Every structure is written in structure tokens, then in C-alpha cells.
């Protein structure tokens, strides 16, 4: 991988990776950090990565980093629940389906959220998502199905989002 190729990938993939990170973290600064880390690792391993899989590699790095962060953040889960309860009225009063859907996506389990975002935003196939998330194709399919069912439940009953 040459420097020119790398810079082209920055142009091509940075926005998508950033969106993926942003949708998961809900924090632009954290998302930027994740994108920079991902590209830094890509540059370090530029000699070992198949150029055709560079994009998947970037998403894989970000996905793994997000899972790590989620594990660390579980310690603060109680506080989050407490804060979320304060915003309950906001959710129930929201009539914006898009906003409600985004909130519902944020409530999905980590892995389900990843596969849905990769599927809907990036249009990856089950196989590609499996490669990124280290899951089998069947697992990806089931996770996506579960996620859709949960999202449907939350859209029908917005109070479940809280």
C-alpha cells in the first residue's frame, strides 16, 4: 500500500467510518479519536493488509474499540439508567420517527447495533459483516433479525426505549 493509496482511502472511507463511530458513541470527539486510531493502525499494518479489505479492516478496528469501550462503560451503567429515566418524557412525547429510531438503535445491544449499522449504512453483506465483527454469516443474520424485532417493538412501544 502506497502513501497515495492510503490518502485515497482516507478520502473514501473516513466519512463512513466516522459515521459508524459517531452513531455508536454519540460523541463526535470520541468518534474522531476512533477514526484516527483506526487509520493509524491501518497505516502501521499497511504491508500486511489486503488492499481490498482495507475498508473492512477499518470498521473492524472501530467495532472492536467500541466493544472495548462498552465493556469499560458498563461500570457506569447504573448512572446511565438513572439519567435515562429523567428523559423518559422526552421519548414518550417524541413524534419524530427518525429520532425515535435512532434512540432505539442506541438502545440495542452492542453487537446488534454494529451489525445493523453496517448493514443499513454501509450496505455490507452478511458475509462482510461477519468478517468485520468476527461472526459467522448465520450469527450475523440472527443478530440482525433480533435487532429488527427489538427495533420494531421499541417503535411500537416507545416507552421501551427508556
Amino acid at each position, binding site marked *: 500500500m502506497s502513501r497515495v493509496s492510503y490518502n485515497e482511502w482516507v478520502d473514501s472511507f473516513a466519512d463512513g467510518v466516522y459515521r459508524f463511530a459517531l452513531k455508536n458513541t454519540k460523541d463526535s470527539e470520541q468518534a474522531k479519536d476512533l477514526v484516527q486510531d483506526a487509520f493509524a493502525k491501518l497505516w502501521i499494518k499497511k504491508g500486511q493488509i489486503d488492499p481490498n479489505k482495507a475498508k473492512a479492516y477499518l470498521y473492524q478496528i472501530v467495532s472492536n474499540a467500541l466493544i472495548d469501550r462498552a465493556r469499560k462503560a458498563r461500570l457506569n451503567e447504573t448512572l446511565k439508567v438513572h439519567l435515562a429515566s429523567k428523559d423518559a418524557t422526552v421519548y414518550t412525547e417524541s413524534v419524530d420517527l427518525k429520532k425515535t429510531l435512532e434512540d432505539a438503535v442506541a438502545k440495542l445491544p452492542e453487537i446488534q447495533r454494529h451489525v445493523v449499522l453496517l448493514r443499513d449504512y454501509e450496505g455490507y453483506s452478511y458475509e462482510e459483516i461477519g468478517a468485520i465483527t468476527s461472526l459467522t454469516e448465520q450469527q450475523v443474520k440472527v443478530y440482525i433479525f433480533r435487532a429488527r*424485532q427489538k427495533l420494531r417493538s421499541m*417503535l411500537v412501544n416507545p416507552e421501551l426505549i427508556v
Partner: protein
Amino acid sequence: MTYQNIPIEVWFIELFDGTLSEEARHEFLAFCLINNIEVPDALTTLMPSEDFLHPKDFLNFPSHESILNDPKQDLLLAYNEGLLNAADAHWVEQQIEANKAWKSLHAEFSATYLVPKSYEFLDKKLLYKQQPAPWWLSASIAAAAVFLGLMLFLFPFKTNDSGISRPTSKVNGKTKKIYQDQPAQPDVSLPTKTSEGTVDLKVPSPIKGIVVSSSRDCTLHPDAYTEDELATTGNNTQTSIDSVVRPMDELTQMAASKNHEKTLRSIIKERIIKRIFDREDNALVLERESKWFNQSFGFKYKRQADRSFSQVKLGPFVFEWNKKNKNSNFLSMLPSNQ
């Protein structure tokens, strides 16, 4: 990909009939055990105990999970995901058209799809990799550094004579005139003791009332003050040294006595600071505390234009020394005997 959803009843029938392969049988039984599936009474004898399970069974993803799902939901999800073949997809479309429940459920699942929205990563310039510097440039810089180091090693800075500095900058006539050798002022109050006794020191053009002695001594000679001057200064003993109107830089702070008690020495010191700063606006002024002889402080100053080789500039200070005179102070001022 073709979507297949085999209801759990079919699995049980195949299990009962013994038509499942050994691997499929194990997977299905493990799935039932792990998920606490209620087994029909007729099949309870076929269900193994939990010892049947291997650790890897818990790690394996329950791939048969969809058999527990509502077939309608599974089919609609598969339809939305594009997993059905043409015939199945057509059948589902017919159900959606004909059946209200299917239609409603289809609309609800369709609403779960996220609409891609573009986000721009604005800090791409941080990610770009720039063209590295050519190797010859790095090599040239390294060679120049080595050469410079070698030159410094072979030709170190040194002065021609003890106590005399070699000017590096061109000194114009005016400056030369200012720094002509001056006859030393006799150090009456505190003679410098050498083998010959008291030494007459050559100093720069003395400021009235101040004699800066040799670079080593830096002793202060208050003798040239007039009585009026001393009297005037003495009447102002309540004034703090810090109140002297000049920039409160480090030098001034260094010069300020820790003990604000106004002694004759502190008064003279204050006067000297004031005069030096007032008269030598562009001068480089250094000072240090001298522990030699009977004086506990000393002043050294020098004009900017008279820098010598043996100078090192560190921030606002220029340190200079005389290598030949090992007994000299590190910060001694060289032009003192000009």
C-alpha cells in the same frame, strides 16, 4: 441466500424418526437443553441429561434459534432483507396485500431500517500521510551536524589572554571610543590582596560614584559618592528596593536584598542598579552574588556590542568566561581590564 425456516415441530419429527444426521441431532438436542425447550412427552425419553453438553455447545451460536420465531415475522424479515427466492417473495407479497396483520407487521419492520445520512469527517488532513523528506536531505542535515560538531571540537572558543575577550562583532568607532581602556580606580576601601598587594584594576569608563572592579572581584567602591548623594539616598531609606522604577525582571529581583534593611551597602547597591539601568539601556547587564573578599555582592555589566567569543547566550542572559584564567568566575565579565 435462501431463507429457510424449519419449524421446531419438524425438527422434533425428524428427531423422533431418526432422520437427523449425528451432527444435526447433537446440535438440536444441545439447543433444546440450553434454551430449556419444552419437549413433547413422547420425546422426553430422547432428551439427554446436561452431561450430554460439551463446553463448546455453549460457545456455539444457537443457529436453530429461528425455529422458535414466529414464522410470519421471520418471513417478513427475510423478505425485507432480500433473502427469499422469487417464489417465496411473491408469496409473501401476496400475504402483505391480502392480510392486514401481515401488512401492518411489514410496515413496522420496514420502519426499522435506518436511512443513511452522510457525515463528513472534517479532520482528514490529520490522517493524510505527507511525502517524507528525501533521504539526501536528512543525510545532508546529519552531515552538517557532524561537521559542526567536529569543528567545535577541533577549534574550541578561546581568548588570547587572560581577562581579555575577543570581539566577534564589528565594533564601530563610537563604541570603541566608549570602551577605551580607562585607568583603574584605586580600590581603597577593599584592596584586592595578591602577591604584590593591592592591584590597580582597569575598568570601563566609570559611572560617577561607581567603580566596577576586576571581573573576579566585582567589588563595589562607594568612595566616589559625594556626600550629597549619600545624604540624599540615605534620607530615602524607607523606600523599598522593589519600588525602584524599572522593569522588575529577574536581574532586579536578584539584586534586591533579601533583607530590606537599609544599610549603606544596600543604598549603594540600589543606586548602582538605577544608574546602570538608566545609563546603559542597551547594555547587557549581568550580576551575581560574590562571596569573595569582604563584599557580598557585585555588579558586572557590559555593552551589547562588545560580545566576545567566550559567551553563551541563554535566554535573556549572556554568560561568558575566561578559560585561561581558571580561578576566574564562570560569569566573570571580561572587559573589566580594558
